[in-house]
């Protein structure tokens, strides 16, 4: 049984999502704006989602896709909490630059 997902070889999914994941990681490491970092983390999660979906499809096993739903829900919750924290930080220091957040060190 062919489906649209399987039109592309599995390794390509793997490469793509690894690539996306790495972009996410690089973004997290290189950017200083908290919101962009948040986005990059979302990107990493989505890379995982993509990977899971493709694996799930190739294995003919729906578990992976179910898992993706979990991830999406959790990611949404995470973003909600993250943004809320960000808002309160912004209220206090009027900035979203993560480098300013270094009151506690050593």
């Amino acid at each position, binding site marked *: 049984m062919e489906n649209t997902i399987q039109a592309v070889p599995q390794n390509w999914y793997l490469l793509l999502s690894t690539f996306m994941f790495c972009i996410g990681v690089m973004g997290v490491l290189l950017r200083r704006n908290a919101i962009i970092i948040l986005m990059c983390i979302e990107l990493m999660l989505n890379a995982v989602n993509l990977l899971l979906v493709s694996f799930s499809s190739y294995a003919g096993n729906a578990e992976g896709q179910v*898992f993706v739903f979990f991830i999406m829900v959790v990611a949404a919750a995470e973003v909600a909490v993250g943004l809320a924290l960000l808002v309160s930080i912004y209220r206090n220091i009027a900035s979203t630059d993560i480098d300013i957040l270094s009151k506690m060190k050593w």
Partner: protein
Amino acid sequence: MNTLIYTACLGLFGLLAEIFNLRKYLIPIMVLGLAVIFSLNLQTWNHPETHFNGMLTDSNFSTAFSGLAIFIMLIILILAGDFYTSSDDEKHISDYMAILVFTLCGALMMFSYANMAMLFLGIETLSISLYVMAGSRRFEVKSNEAGFKYFLMGSFASAFLLFGIALIFGVTGTFSIDGIGVYMRAHADQLDPLFIVGMLLMIFAMLFKVSAAPFHFWAPDVYEGAPSLITALMSTLVKIAAFAAFYKLLSVCFVFALGKAEIILTVSCAATLLIGNLVALTQDNFKRLLAYSGISHAGYMLLAIISLQGSTDSALFLYSAGYAVASLAAFAIAITVFKATGTESISGFNGLGKKNPMLAAGLSMAMLSLAGIPPFAGFFGKYFIFSEAMRNGYQNLVFLAIISSIIGVFYYMKVIVAMYSKPANEFEVKPTFSYQLVIIVCILLSIIIGVFPGLFTKLL
């Protein structure tokens, strides 16, 4: 499984309590509820069961750790009563309580998961609640910073965890930890590289969660910035939950491929021991000190994880229990002192031995237990872990752990010295009744575990 459901219900009740205007009675009700749940949890003892199509399993392992976690939460809730006293806190008390109980839910899932999905959900439930709680002092930059740092790094690490899970799923086609274990046993000699990478990524993520070096960076900052009570929670419940999950993951899933991760685990363990103890030497802030001490304890517990054979699980449990009671006692006293003196520095403890000998004695015992000196529980935990590691041939690591315990004694003693030989400051320190109760109970437990460790090692 029932434990989890009841706990979730208790959390929901907390949220609803606001509607019924039960603020005043909320904490007693919650405490009572947890006590009931604690006893219900005991019923699963020796009744291993699987629920939700293999998503959760009850086993003695999960029951024991659940019991411990519920106990910790119970203590935290008792402490919360006199901790959240400002008017702002009063307003949010039901939220706080509910979120704390949800944290427990996450932890319970982490003890009894049988599926990667539940592991992930457990970790996230736990973490997200904690992000909120760590940042719950909205107007304090420190608290904000702690919450946000924790959040950023925690979700970053979660992504690695997920990527690992995805890769393993890709290779094995299942999320069930038993299934993965079966796959591994079958393919132990020729494992797919993808699987190994997935496993290592998961291990990295778990190392992050247990705050092992070199993934420990979040811990000191977050511990310092978070409200003290939450720090207590993080250093006990969260750490124990993470370790239990980590232990289960390795012992059920990856046990046959552990050789492939040996270097990582060994290096991490050694680094954790050294960094935790060495950096703690130089700390002046008590919470930060406990954070580093917590890192070093993670090192000892990693030793149990590495050994992973025989009765390591009971060693880990004993260690966790000993560590938890000592930490809780220490935090209960520290919170009292912080409140009285308004500083979190060790100098706040100066002369406590004269001002309040009972409190000082309690903290001394807690510190000695953390330092691993008999007859307190901390010693036995260490002893069992060292013994297990020795049995499995990790002599060098044990030796390193011994050396680092010697270093560790220095900073625990620093607190004791401050209490007994520095001139007293002018603040009067007087713990409330609930704090006294907690301190006495925890210290007594610490001694009981120390004198009858057999009672606890036989649990698993």
